[in-house]
């Protein structure tokens, strides 16, 4: 009986692996681009942002692994444990979503999240995040300067402060069933802080849309202040004449001030702020003034007693 011989393919007809992988990648990218052109923005936004303007910040800083960024969070709307948000934020519905821009502005307007996503070119910003609990991360955020939105609202001359209001819906945010903080979560900035080019209206991280536990679908990131200043899942931005009282100021006026600038010289009443543990590292590192952004933001506080305005 004749043994079966399988047909041999000439070597010249075999596509080398790197080449076929490259072709595949090209087809995916091209196909993705073609699809993106056909589909309305929200659909492509849900699948990542593609190419972005790269950051001039954070070069040389090692990024905190995505697993830690999305698995170790303070987001009391979903519970007070660090792993509660990752476990429980799945119930957050990020579409439809709108943000009311109101108060002392000439053009009050409610923006749909899709209008926000296409308002200005998105860019990647690698920022240090310093928590008031003395740990820190390095995160590649995606967004655009909050100033872009502020300009569109045209604040009046009376607008001195900006208040950020997070979503209040105990059905979606089970942590709000407990009165651990005053809901909705409120944060605020002075208007010049809000207009500062470092202040980022943030819609993504690590090349993708914000995970619910990181404040989807839209949050702010203020890298020179302790993490709690960077309000998450924002539904309203209000322009005010008076300094607003934030949720954390109500919770502990002696411990959490309005400014909350990262400052190794001014201790939290119950722990030192001189050092911090970068997530993933063993030895603590020294905390830098304004979280290392002094060059950019120190002029905002010229002449202020930072121990008093903590």
């Amino acid at each position: 009986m004749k043994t079966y011989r399988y047909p041999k393919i000439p070597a010249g007809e075999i596509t080398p692996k790197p080449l076929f992988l490259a072709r595949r990648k090209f087809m995916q990218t091209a196909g993705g681009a073609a699809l993106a052109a056909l589909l309305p923005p929200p659909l492509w936004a849900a699948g990542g942002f593609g190419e972005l303007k790269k950051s001039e910040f954070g070069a040389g800083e090692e990024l905190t692994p995505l697993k830690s960024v999305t698995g170790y969070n303070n987001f009391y709307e979903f519970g007070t444990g660090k792993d509660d948000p990752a476990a429980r934020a799945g119930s957050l519905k990020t579409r439809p979503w709108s943000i009311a821009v109101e108060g002392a502005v000439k053009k009050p307007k409610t923006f749909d999240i899709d209008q926000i996503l296409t308002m200005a070119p998105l860019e990647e910003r690698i920022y240090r995040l310093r928590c008031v609990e003395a740990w820190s991360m390095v995160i590649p955020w995606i967004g655009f300067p909050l100033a872009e939105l502020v300009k569109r609202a045209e604040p009046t001359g009376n607008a001195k402060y900006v208040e950020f209001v997070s979503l209040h819906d105990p059905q979606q945010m089970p942590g709000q069933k407990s009165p651990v903080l005053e809901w909705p979560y409120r944060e605020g900035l002075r208007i010049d802080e809000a207009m500062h080019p470092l202040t980022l209206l943030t819609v993504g991280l690590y090349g993708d849309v914000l995970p619910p536990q990181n404040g989807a679908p839209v949050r702010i990131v203020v890298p020179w202040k302790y993490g709690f200043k960077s309000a998450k899942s924002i539904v309203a931005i209000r322009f005010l004449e008076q300094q607003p009282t934030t949720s954390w100021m109500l919770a502990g006026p002696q411990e959490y001030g309005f400014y909350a600038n990262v400052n190794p010289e001014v201790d939290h009443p119950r722990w030192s702020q001189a050092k911090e543990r970068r997530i993933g590292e063993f030895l603590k590192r020294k905390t830098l003034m304004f979280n290392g952004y002094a060059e950019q933001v120190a002029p905002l506080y010229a002449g202020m007693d930072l121990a008093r305005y903590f």
Partner: protein
Amino acid sequence: MPKPSLNAKALAWIKAATFLLALLPLAKLGVNAYLDDLGANPIEKITHVTGYWTLTMLTITLAATPLRRLSGWNWPIRLRRMLGLFAFGYGCLHLSTYLVLDQFFDWDAIVEDIVKRPYITVGFAAFVSMIPLAITSTDNMLRRLGGKNWLRLHRLAYLCAVGGVVHYWWLVKKDLSNPIAFASVLAVLLGARIAYRLGGAIIRRPATTRST
């Protein structure tokens, strides 16, 4: 009335089981550390777990006396010393985690913490007051001190537990539910002692007058 005590064999079994159970949290911590499954901030996790079990062991230790009064069983008292030593053991791990892993022998920062941060001051004092209890936990020391003095010294355990709860209460940022739970259990356990003392005095007095 206390029931007749268990035979030696049954007591040995209960002791062995308790010993293994009390080691379980440490074993779990070890396994999680080995599997690199302690989360994004492992040092914080180890600190919290060892602290939690120090306080839990202290609370269980303090439950022995009321449990005997309630049930009439004598064996809880026979476990008390071992449980107390486990509390001390977890306390040692908790403190060494802080000294070695968290601060890495940064003595300036450690001294500053103990002096300036009330929650650390109280926690450290609670740990220090466990040391004489651990040292005098042997039969030999009991004999040398005499039962009465030994018991008096070991009332320090109440202070340790209160210190531990205060330490926990003061360090929490906002969510006090766990410290409140510990404080409530401790209040019941210490309250029971006061109640027994007062109640016991009232009940005992007529009984003694009758017998004379």
